[in-house]
């Protein structure tokens, strides 16, 4: 049996150098999308090829990797990416947020506060926050160059006119360090406040669109809003029905084929740790919340 021979973390050294240079520029210019020559990865787009390339370029043999997909360590996507790096880089893996040095994520920021010793890598499908307003790359480049973000505000204000509030609940646009407007990837807007002043470095990789961008630690990140319609993070007005948390982001899961459903923490590690600490759901209290 001949095992396939991999480069460390799959990518060849030339590719890693190119991606590493892009990462350094991204950190130096917070919120700016650095173009890079994205490589074919042994997984389909939509599986986080941008995030995987960023992770592969920063990962070292002493790292401990955690991979989450919508808050869960157990989805096919998360398990596959974790196995990929065990196989190609030999790194340790973990599901516990506080034990990880590198966390690759799709669609969530962990509930547990991150530390200065951690890097959060986001998988990004569409990195350009202005794309749905302006399809031409040359134009969006120009708009970023001139900080011409009026159209974005018009779009958000049209939301208010139509719905009475800003309807965007995922990938809610932010302004980074008072300069670039940035797409935080499809995280729920509940997570937006965690983007700001994080102790951890945050890196964003878009494989199909070939962009890398970053938020350094301790950088102000502001969700776009208006004086008369301030930004409000949203969560279901309920407690987790497993651990009783009233401050975590909740997923509504269907429990049977008769329309049964329950609210549970989207961050499975957070929920498990709370239950291990003895936290539990108290139904009456939950009724009172709804009452």
């Amino acid at each position, binding site marked *: 049996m001949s095992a396939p021979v991999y480069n460390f973390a799959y990518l060849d050294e030339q590719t*890693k150098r190119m991606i590493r240079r892009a990462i*350094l520029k991204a950190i*130096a210019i917070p919120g700016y999308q650095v173009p890079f020559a994205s490589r074919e990865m042994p997984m389909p787009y939509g599986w986080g090829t941008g995030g995987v390339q960023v992770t592969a370029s920063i990962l070292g043999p002493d790292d401990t990797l955690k991979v989450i997909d919508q808050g869960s360590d157990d989805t096919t996507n998360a398990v596959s990416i974790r196995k990929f790096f*065990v196989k190609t880089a030999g790194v340790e893996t973990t599901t516990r947020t506080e034990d990880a040095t590198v966390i690759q994520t799709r669609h969530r920021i962990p509930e547990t506060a991150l530390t200065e010793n951690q890097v959060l890598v986001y998988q990004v499908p569409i990195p350009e926050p202005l794309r749905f307003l302006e399809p031409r790359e040359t134009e969006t480049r120009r708009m970023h*160059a001139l900080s011409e973000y009026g159209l974005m505000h018009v779009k958000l204000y049209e939301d208010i006119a139509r719905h009475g509030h800003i309807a965007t609940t995922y990938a809610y646009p932010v302004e980074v360090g008072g*300069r670039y407007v940035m797409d935080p990837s499809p995280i729920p807007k509940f997570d937006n406040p965690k983007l700001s002043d994080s102790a951890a470095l945050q890196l964003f990789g878009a494989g199909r669109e070939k962009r890398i961008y970053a938020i*350094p*630690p*301790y950088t102000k990140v502001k969700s776009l809003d208006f004086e008369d319609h301030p930004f409000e993070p949203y969560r279901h007005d309920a407690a987790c029905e497993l651990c009783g948390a009233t401050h975590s982001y909740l997923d509504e899961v269907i429990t049977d084929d008769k329309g049964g459903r329950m609210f549970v923490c989207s961050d499975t590690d957070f929920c498990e740790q709370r239950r291990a600490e003895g936290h539990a759901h108290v139904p009456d209290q939950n009724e009172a919340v709804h009452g």
Partner: protein
Amino acid sequence: MNNLSPFAAHPREGGGPEVKKQDLDSRFRGNERSMDPAYESQAAFRALMDCTARPGELRKLRGVSAPAPFAPATAALIQSLADYETPLWLDAAFAAEKKVADWIRFHCGAPIVREPGEAAFALIADAAAMPPLAQFSQGTAEYPDRSTTLLVQIESFAGTPFTLRGPGIKASREFAASPLPADFAVRMKENRALFPRGVDLVLVAGNDIAALPRSVAVEAR
């Protein structure tokens, strides 16, 4: 999906997240590990990434020995980050040593350019006499990343005191480095005024490095 896909044996959903070290090519194990250039490159890059994310914080690299006037950390960073795609500019002190160009050609194959404005990286051994930052590439308004990164060798992270503020810094950070041009804080202020254009600096003293990316506000104390 291609034939060497690690996804070939597809894990079942909920298949248990605790995966330990396994299947690892033996190249990455044991004594050879410390000598593997892939590890050396990763370690040097990661240190610089941390430094860039936290301007003014020091990191110690495992330096690489290279001809004078290369500091060991400068050689490690160049080996890690430079290649045929990244033109290098050498200051007079670097350019005066023929062995320097030979080492660069052999170890990373990066072209050496005469115009500082064409360089991806600039190597500066004589920090006090460094050229004005405006002589290097500042990038463009649309592509501010197309700029020069300066590797500036100093004697030590002591001496002239500065206060740093900006992304990556909680409140402020005290920083010191010498020798540097007397008007260094003014130069950095002019550089920052160009943001998002501008150059990024990496200061090197022996095996130690610190970064001053264009986003940092440098104030003389």
